[in-house]
């Protein structure tokens, strides 16, 4: 008997197109593991993960991304939000850059003052509701 797929979605506005590969990413995220992908042929790494390598379209494998601290590369405070996120506005979207140079785009959820480029961001995880989970930044 096949295992029933657990219903999981990423982030605050839900794109319900969840593939088996993306599902594995989400199930790891639920365990507070951020996964990147790696091409078995050329070794290229992708964060966020791609199922297919951009260079040779080989099927990538998911591997845990080890870094936990990043610097704020750029940010926006969204005051007027898309309809799907209107109830959350204003919110801060930040691109964080890890020491390896890889970047991740997520909300900063605990800012008490204006963001400053270069400030340290800590990777964290959150359960938004019973189906939605996310990675996020804390300062």
């Amino acid at each position, binding site marked *: 008997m096949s295992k029933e797929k657990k219903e999981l*979605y*990423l*982030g*605050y*506005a*839900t*794109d319900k*197109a969840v593939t088996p590969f*993306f599902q594995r990413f989400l199930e790891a995220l639920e365990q507070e593991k951020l996964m990147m992908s790696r091409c078995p042929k050329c070794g290229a790494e992708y964060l*966020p993960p791609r199922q297919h390598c951009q260079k040779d379209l080989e099927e990538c494998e998911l591997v845990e991304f080890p870094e936990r601290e990043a610097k704020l*590369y*750029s*940010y*926006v*405070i*969204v*005051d*007027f*939000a*898309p*309809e*799907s*996120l*209107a109830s*959350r*506005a204003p*919110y801060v*979207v930040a*691109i964080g850059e890890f020491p390896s140079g890889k*970047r*991740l*785009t*997520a*909300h900063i959820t605990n800012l008490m003052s204006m963001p400053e*480029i270069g400030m340290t961001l800590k990777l964290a995880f959150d359960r938004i509701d019973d189906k939605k989970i*996310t990675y996020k930044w804390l300062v």
Partner: protein
Amino acid sequence: MTRRVAVVAGGHSKFGKRYDATVRELCAEAFKPILDEGITQDMIDASVLSYAASQFTGQGAGSALIADYLGLHEKPHLRVESACTTGTASLRAAWGMVASGLYDVMLVLGVEQMNRVTSAQATELMARAGDMRWEYPYGISFPAFYALMASRYMHEYNLPHEVLSMIAVKSHHYGAQNPKAHLPREVTLEEANNAVPIARPLNLYDCSLITDGAAAVVIAAENRVKEFTDEPVWIKGIGAGASEMMIQDRPSLTSIPGAKRAAKAAYKMAGIEPKDIDMAEVHDCFTIAELIAYEDLGFAEPGKGREIVENKENYHDGRIPVNVDGGLKSKGHPLGATGISMTYEILMQMRGQVQKPSRQIDDVHYGLAHNVGQSGQFVNVIIFERGW
């Protein structure tokens, strides 16, 4: 072996919140001035419809509807979609079909109707042009993508927001003189700089408008041009460029790599340099986009675009007049119509037909249109040359 291709006629609807019209009536309004010049449907071999976002109206098969409404239903037609650069992407596609000899004469018609939904819904629909898996879930609105560029630009070059507001003041100054503009009124620097925030650091006056409207041009192969006009505007250079899908993947956020690639290709094909350009229509979907465009197009060195703004070199009598029709900011930004509206403005400027002397640029020989899709994923730069 390609043939030279010229823009030989144009038409433009009133831009605005057009609750009195749907896409078909807007297209008729843009096409009618072309018929009034004596050009008939029989003279047009085929058409391209630039219609970026049918999700705003729900109307599918747009080019079939429009071709039929305009009496072009027996002529081949197709629709192009490339987000906000759809207009010049359509012109590029049509240019290829005419230059190759497939057709001699084509209509390129751009339209968008964006006000049948609320602003929040429009913001939602445009956010879906981000990566649906990784960006959309975080509510990155269209202004937010450009705000991410603005934050980084302001940080790297120590740019005060006021410089961005000066661009908005200029746009509205010229939009106020353009009867086709969506928001034809002046704003003060104080109003622009202190407006309600939309996606900080961008405020309301940093953002282009959610607009309904249409614009149309007819292009013809060199051997047919004389049947249409003694004042053709040649398509001298066409450059297209592309950038990474996700904004976080760009090495730098202070420039749009696809725009630089497109500009380089366009200048090379035209055989001219940035200093030769007499006027530019740039994609100021946000004020920061106009500032970055000055640098990507080679009008200013990286980080120095503000000098063009502060010295008012971008006014109609300045070194490089930019968007003296009001731009996307004041004239409006009906997505699919925008690139064609830019082309129309260059045609009118070259012909000395902008109606108001206070925004007529003297002696335009080379005009440039810079049209950016989404947040720079695809860009078209087209250089036009006066043919008389």
